[in-house]
């Protein structure tokens, strides 16, 4: 029995493995369950995240792609748009109807035509350019705004830790 969701996820998986975007690897943890994925994202060049590889998990709802997945980093992330527990907070992961802050344009939010690939690319660019309008981690946002040097040092430290150095 294959639901439209798992079929589409499998398609996305195929697409991602035969034509992966640079710096991104993603796929289901096991092929028995298409609704839980693991992804690896490389830190974008020219940012303090450069050189790092950041693991994350993606959980998909049963009615995907009508509703967006959730994404959570499995490593320590010091970033204005990542909650201390690793959950990523960016507009593309927010369902269209739900915008308590009214910070986001409807067009930026989740729609069934988005995809895992687009999410991961957005997250990559989020690493390079944090959005401090609606920070998930207020401390990190403040540090990013006011003490950029300290912020970058902390990020680099995390990168080194993540690589086991």
């Amino acid at each position, binding site marked *: 029995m294959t639901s439209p969701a798992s079929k589409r996820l499998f398609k996305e998986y195929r697409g991602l493995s035969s034509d992966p975007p640079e710096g991104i690897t993603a796929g289901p943890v096991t*092929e028995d369950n298409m609704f839980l994925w693991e992804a690896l994202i490389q830190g974008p060049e020219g940012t303090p995240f450069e050189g790092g590889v950041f693991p994350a998990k993606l959980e998909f709802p049963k009615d995907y792609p009508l509703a967006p997945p959730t994404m959570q980093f499995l490593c320590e992330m010091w970033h204005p748009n990542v909650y*201390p527990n690793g959950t990523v907070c960016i507009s593309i992961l927010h369902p269209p109807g739900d915008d308590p802050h009214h910070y986001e344009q409807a067009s930026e939010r989740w*729609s069934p035509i988005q995809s895992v690939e687009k999410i991961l690319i957005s997250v990559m660019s989020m690493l390079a350019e944090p959005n401090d309008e609606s920070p998930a981690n207020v401390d990190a946002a403040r540090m990013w705004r006011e003490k950029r040097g300290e912020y970058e040092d902390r990020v680099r430290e995390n990168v080194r830790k993540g690589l086991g150095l």
Partner: protein
Amino acid sequence: MASFDLPDSTDWLDTSLSSFEPLEAALRCQVCKEFYDTPMITLCSHTFCSLCIRRCITTDGKCPTCKKEGQTDKLMPNWVVGEIVERFVKARPAALELARRDKEEKKGTSGRKRKLDDTDLEDDEISVRSTRSRKTRTAAPAGGADMSDPIAVVNSEEEGDYVPEGMVKCPICQKAMKEEQVYMHLDSCPGQKGPGGRNTRSRTNNAFSNTFQHQSTKLSPSPTPTRLPQLNYSLLKDNALRQKLHSLGIPTWGPKQLLIRRHTEWLNLWNSNCDATHPKTKGQLLKELDVWERTQGGHAGFTEAKVMKKDFDGNKWATNNKDHFDELIANARKKRTAPTEGEEKSEEKKEGVKDAPKVIPVQYSREQPANPPTETLLIPHTERAQEPQTDTKPSVDVARPYEGNNEALAIIRKKVDEANNNSNSSSSAGPQLEGEAPSLRPSEGISNPFSSPSRKVPMFQVPEDPVIEVETKSR
């Protein structure tokens, strides 16, 4: 996972026709990533499968591409796209095979001669075998138009063996078709797999290639069904809705929320089937609804209902989640105690007398931090903003904020005892800080707009998962 071996536009990337990748991608629905199935165009001129766009619109009422408002009854069929897709799908296997082989030949420079010979041989072989199939197909598929004869032959041969995605072969005439269509087709299958049978069939197939023109004359076991109207669910009582579902012949069990979702899905399945060139039977649609039921509906453990069950056991909930409550209480308290000690005390005395079910509104405050609208009802904004300043690791040691502060602990214990004596709550509240949970509610001290003595349980159930996840992760 053989059933998942699906063709994809990226198949073209490794061939000499890599520019076909975007072409094929353009022929696929953006929602399901399959080739368009019964493409429909919206008022904003975007095209999707009939079922996909119906599902999207019934979910959030908008076009997935441009987010403009859309209505399912304003959808129009996009015949041209439908035909292009149909032609492309037929031409695809041969073209892909050819492009792959071409790439391989270009790769291997040393064994090139031999390879070419092989190919020739193969072609000869095939052309002998497939004269017949060429006869039966009066027109070569679109993709074969610019190909030389032997290639066109390979084309039709390939088609015989290759079964495109989601398709199966008719056991009698070997024609590839959608799985769901087989049963319907069998009723009208024109004949055995012999040249005769194939001939007749292919003539009907190809005489006028536009299958859409045959919609009225096609062999169909049932007359074209009529579209079902949408219902205004809010005006329907449970029983009336159940009655409706019953008259439609679909399952009627489950709470109203599930009935609504089931009816919506049935409407989507049914109405998109009305758009289709080859409508399925009701039995097939019911099977699809059953798949939905098991993957997303009532059999999927998919709790979407936001309204709390009537038999919700508030006390049990409070006991089971005591840790979380305690943590939140401690958290809120920590920020409150200093300025409002006296006031809090009197309020809490009052609260202590009240009954246990009143504790439940606190669940609102247990939503994850990402969800301020409910939380702000209970905890003033300023406090939330301050939290990160005062504490670099906010979630670390909040469970025992009074550790070491004996004076405060003493006060609290006294209050807890007091409350325990007064309240008939069955909670296991002891004299320790952790035991204070259900009887002492800081959130009651802060004005709680939802609390009213007459209502024992809140209207809405807080989703369970996010709460637990956030809490446990932050430890």
